[in-house]
């Protein structure tokens, strides 16, 4: 059976098979959680407006997007601390600087 591909409101592609609910849980799952001192990219979710700029312009695809559009650290080992997300975030809600 071919997989159905759908786009949600934020343009995120969700692959759906017979069990869409399970897929949703997998996409929503945050693989990496860290505190301010240890995480390569720190996201301050209280100020984030989920515009998607940091995920779109990350040069090494270290960031990913959850189903609701908010960013999370998808590949923490790929971050090169270029601070592109720092400069392009309109809400001062993310930092990729070395700590």
């Amino acid at each position, binding site marked *: 059976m071919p997989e159905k591909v759908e786009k949600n409101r934020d343009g995120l592609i969700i692959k759906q098979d017979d069990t869409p609910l399970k897929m949703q849980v997998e996409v929503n799952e945050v693989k990496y959680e860290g505190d301010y001192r240890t995480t390569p990219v720190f996201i301050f979710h209280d*100020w984030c*407006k989920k515009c998607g700029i940091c995920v779109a312009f990350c040069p090494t695809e270290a960031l990913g997007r959850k189903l609701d559009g908010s960013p999370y650290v998808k590949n923490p080992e790929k971050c090169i601390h270029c601070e592109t997300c720092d400069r392009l975030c309109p809400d001062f809600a993310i930092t990729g600087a070395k700590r």
Partner: protein
Amino acid sequence: MKKIPQKEIHKYLRHNKKFPHVWCPGCSDGIILGATIRAVAEIGWEKDDCAMVSGIGCSSRMPVYVDFNTAHTLHGRALAYATGIKMAKPRLNVIVVTGDGDASAIGGNHLIHACRRNINLTVICINNNIYGMTGGQYSPTTPHGAKASTMPFGNIDNDFDLCKLTIGAGATFVARTTAYHATEMQSIIKAGFEHNGFAFIEVMAACPVIYGRWNKKGDAPAMMKEMKDQYIPLSVFDKLAPDEKMEKSPRGILKAVLEPEYSERYAELVKSLQSREGEKV
């Protein structure tokens, strides 16, 4: 260009104001605020050395969030207030933040006469091609054919090129940059701050919620990618054929010359008149 991390920026923000700020998701105004603060931090100005003045509009909410000497003034009259501040206290570094409608429509006369006068101000004009705050009316910089709430079938006016306007009016520093090129924006704003004379910096901004929706431009990253393709460096732009130049626009420092500055000339005049005290004029 010096890397300024995010925590340095928080020293310049007013944390007693309500954050997150009022701008829509994906609005470029926050990026420009960040670049402005980074430029100030790179030069090393204290908070009390700066004065930020604005008119009315989305972009003019910017002075609310920074901890400088700030003034949020009448629609279009930011340059008039800023001229007064600079004349009264020439030691202040006066930054004027205006939108495209604020600077070119309501305050158009103030803009050209401030350019002619060559007073030491830095004007950051955030051009998002529409009046965002008041509901999406078309502005003097809305491109020909683009839609807005008061032009639902496409704009029939021609648009202003603000850089050509200010070069023609006699500004001594004119530059254009975009919200996508945030690193370049920081260095251009810094060069504008260090310039002794009237500096006009046009920053092209994305308005994904009002302008983007009317013209089906997509979300904020899509609008910023489009910006990246359209605005090319001045050296590359000069080599293009005339028919290719119609689609592209130049960015970078378009004009930088040194001319006598207004508040210094005024101080000289005052000094020379004080030395003639007692004479009959």
